[in-house]
């Protein structure tokens, strides 16, 4: 009867593993606690079903194992039992779906006060663009991309004049402010993934995608790519620093001054050439 034993062990072992193993999600750093809660609900419902089915199977295998002269019951169906189980399943499914759809609605509705930032995926690095004082991001186009304009900013768009472009640097975000992340790619599909934020979204060349979040914990977090984008996929890394508003403002100020200095520098070069 080792089958019975193994079935029970699989059920019990899986539950113990779930509670005792050291592998679990990283502490959350955004407002998407809702997502974690929905996962927990789903874990409970599915866990109960899993254990119940396995233990019932183990019971059946033990209780109705073949013995000489044992007679199986001839019972083609039992409508009441089957419809009862169907209804219970329906209730369980609804209990998972309802919060899921509720949170999804929240997820795709960007709050009006969210400030936009842009994240650009390129094989195999992350670049960022923050709006300047005007709070607006300028237009871009793939055809404007050049060595001195890696993100393809439209030079004629006044909104884009004061945009802060970060390449090969950390992204900084202020804590507690909703942020709309606009995602763009210039080559292939990527996916902006910070495990602590829970939220993620694919990045499509040719169009832009978005999601939103509010950082809730200060610290430095790794950015990963979660959509196979070629050989360098696992090495497409970056960092995002969530910090207090004061520190963020100081950092942004520094970046803006750097941008201005750079622009003056290039203008100076142009003049020199003339």
């Amino acid at each position, binding site marked *: 009867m080792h089958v019975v034993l193994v079935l029970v062990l699989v059920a019990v072992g899986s539950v113990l593993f779930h509670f005792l193993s050291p592998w679990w999600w990283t502490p959350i750093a955004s407002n998407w606690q809702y997502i974690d809660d929905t996962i927990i609900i789903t874990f409970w419902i599915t866990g109960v079903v899993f254990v119940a089915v396995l233990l019932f199977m183990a019971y059946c295998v033990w209780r109705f194992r073949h013995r000489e002269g044992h007679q199986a019951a001839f019972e083609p169906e039992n409508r009441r039992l*089957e419809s009862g189980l169907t209804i219970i399943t329906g209730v369980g499914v609804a209990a998972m779906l309802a919060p899921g*759809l509720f949170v999804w609605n929240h997820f795709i509705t960007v709050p009006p006060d969210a400030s936009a930032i842009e994240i650009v995926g390129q094989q195999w690095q992350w670049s960022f663009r923050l709006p300047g004082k005007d709070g607006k991001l300028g237009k871009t186009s793939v055809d404007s991309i050049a060595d001195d304009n890696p993100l393809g900013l439209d030079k004629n768009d006044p909104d884009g004049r004061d945009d802060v472009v970060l390449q090969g640097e950390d992204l900084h975000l202020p804590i507690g402010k909703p942020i709309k992340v606009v995602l763009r790619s210039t080559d292939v599909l990527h996916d902006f*993934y910070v495990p602590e934020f829970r939220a993620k979204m694919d990045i499509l060349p040719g169009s832009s995608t978005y999601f939103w979040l509010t950082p809730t914990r200060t610290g430095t977090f*790794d950015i990963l790519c979660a959509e*196979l984008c070629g050989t360098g996929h*696992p090495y497409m890394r970056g960092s995002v620093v969530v910090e207090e508003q004061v520190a963020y403002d100081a950092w942004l100020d520094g970046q803006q001054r750097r941008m201005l200095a750079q622009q003056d520098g290039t203008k100076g070069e142009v003049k020199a050439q003339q």
Partner: protein
Amino acid sequence: MVDVPLGAAGVPPAEVEDVELYHPKSWLTHYVFSQDAKIIAVQYSVTALSIGLVALMLSWLMRLQLAFPGALSFIDADAYYQLITMHGMMMVVYVLTALFLGGFGNYLIPLMLGARDMVFPYANMLSFWFYLLAVVVLFASFAVPGGPTGAGWTLYPPQAITAGTPGLAWGIIMMLVSLMIFIVGFTMGGLNYVVTVLQGRTRGMTLMRMPLTVWGIFTASVMALLAFPALFVGCVMMLFDRLLGTSFFMPEIIEQGTRLPYGGGSPILFQHLFWFFGHPEVYIVALPAFGIVSDLISVHARRNIFGYRMMVWAIVAIGALSFVVWAHHMYVSGMNPYFGFFFATTTLIIAIPTAIKVYNWVLTLWRGDIHLTVPMLFALAFIVTFVNGGLTGLFLGNVVVDVPLSDTMFVVAHFHMVMGVAPILVIFGAIYHWYPKVTGRLLSVPLGQFHFWVTFLGAYLIFFPMHYLGLMGVPRRYYEMGEIAIYPQSAHDLNIFITVMALLVGAAQLAFVFNLIWSLRHGREAGGNPWRACSLEWQTPVTPPPHGNFGKELPIVYRWAYDYHVPGAPEDFIPQNQPPLAGEMASRTP
């Protein structure tokens, strides 16, 4: 009570249109270019199982790289992505689809329905040779310059056809061409499976008397016929984009500093086409497994399958519903986010008929007379892994829960459990079950039990902990997990453990292969009906059945396929072609 005329002895033989059998004249037409569905089934099965072994070895290499990054010098990142792509594509299309439909479908449909052969035997033969050609093209891509494609089995553009992905020169073209050949070949086979069920049933074999195996394969074939064209269209368009410079899927792209001449295309369009095929594909693999496992459980628990009607309706409902859930693979793809509501709802609804099937399998065990034969062991293990994998599907199908989990190892663990391990356990169970019909001999039981325990427990230990890596935030398709602050050292150790288990499980398959070959000569003689089963394939006059399956006259069917332990019957089973016993009806009235 339904008014059914009771048959008596001396019913005239079945009035089914006799199929004109092609009578082979030489060894070549008998065993190689055979038009006998059973030979074609063996050809399909042997080819698919061999590819399965290759794909298994590819997965060893991947696992070795993940556990000991860089230890094998010949696996660089390029090679790694080629390995995962080929492993995935081989397993999903060339192993599982081909084995369930081409292998089991060909063998079981005519025999279980009391037909002499498939209705279009010539197309059936061509189907296998197209399949073999597709396989040859697929394997040839290992030999072309640049090697096979490394775009992942989903072949998402633009990266599938831009620089930075291995196999850009030849590999991707070979892959697309191979898939197209496979689809053309499959269409010929699929027409056979479907039309044989519609037209080839023997007298008395109504739809509601068909074994669930046939229901599963039939529904899956219909779905495959309707779903594969989506992949075909996707392949043609991508081939155009790659070779002729069109922009079906290709937007404006800067490829490593160079502006490509593409523009305006939509990568999402490909994803829609791919998953319009890809999701039904999951059920194309699952439904035959559902059907087969129902029969295995019923036969070896010596009990009628519980809730036969519900089982049939559930199969049909799942088949129909599976065409409106495809975009649940695309929740975070950037498609219109409002689709999420619709697709999450349909996806979770499909869980209900699936759950009914699970209940009915378990309820068939309840009050049964369970014989723990090797096929039964595999069937039980299927329920465990399928329930596990199905339940994690509820995480991924529920749109917002999918957001953190998509493209992580959680997904890898989920689909391996539910459409890798579970169907393969059914395949093993089915082979242990029907091998005696195919060869006349039983497979060795001790070897089978060894194979079972290592495979089942090993596979569970591989994939169950893997979910938690994904939960922790390890993305899938990473050449190495890397030193990221959130991964503790223990996660690396877990990776090593998973790899060791994978090697073990893989090695255990040698016992299975040895068993298959050894028992061909030395297995115990099985006789015609070793499991004392009701369905027609066990009632052939000769085992293994010759060309034409049944003797001079086709059997007549008097009952469903699940008459086990009928009260008052002299034996614990009544074959489908057994005329009514005296006073039988009285004992059945509810």
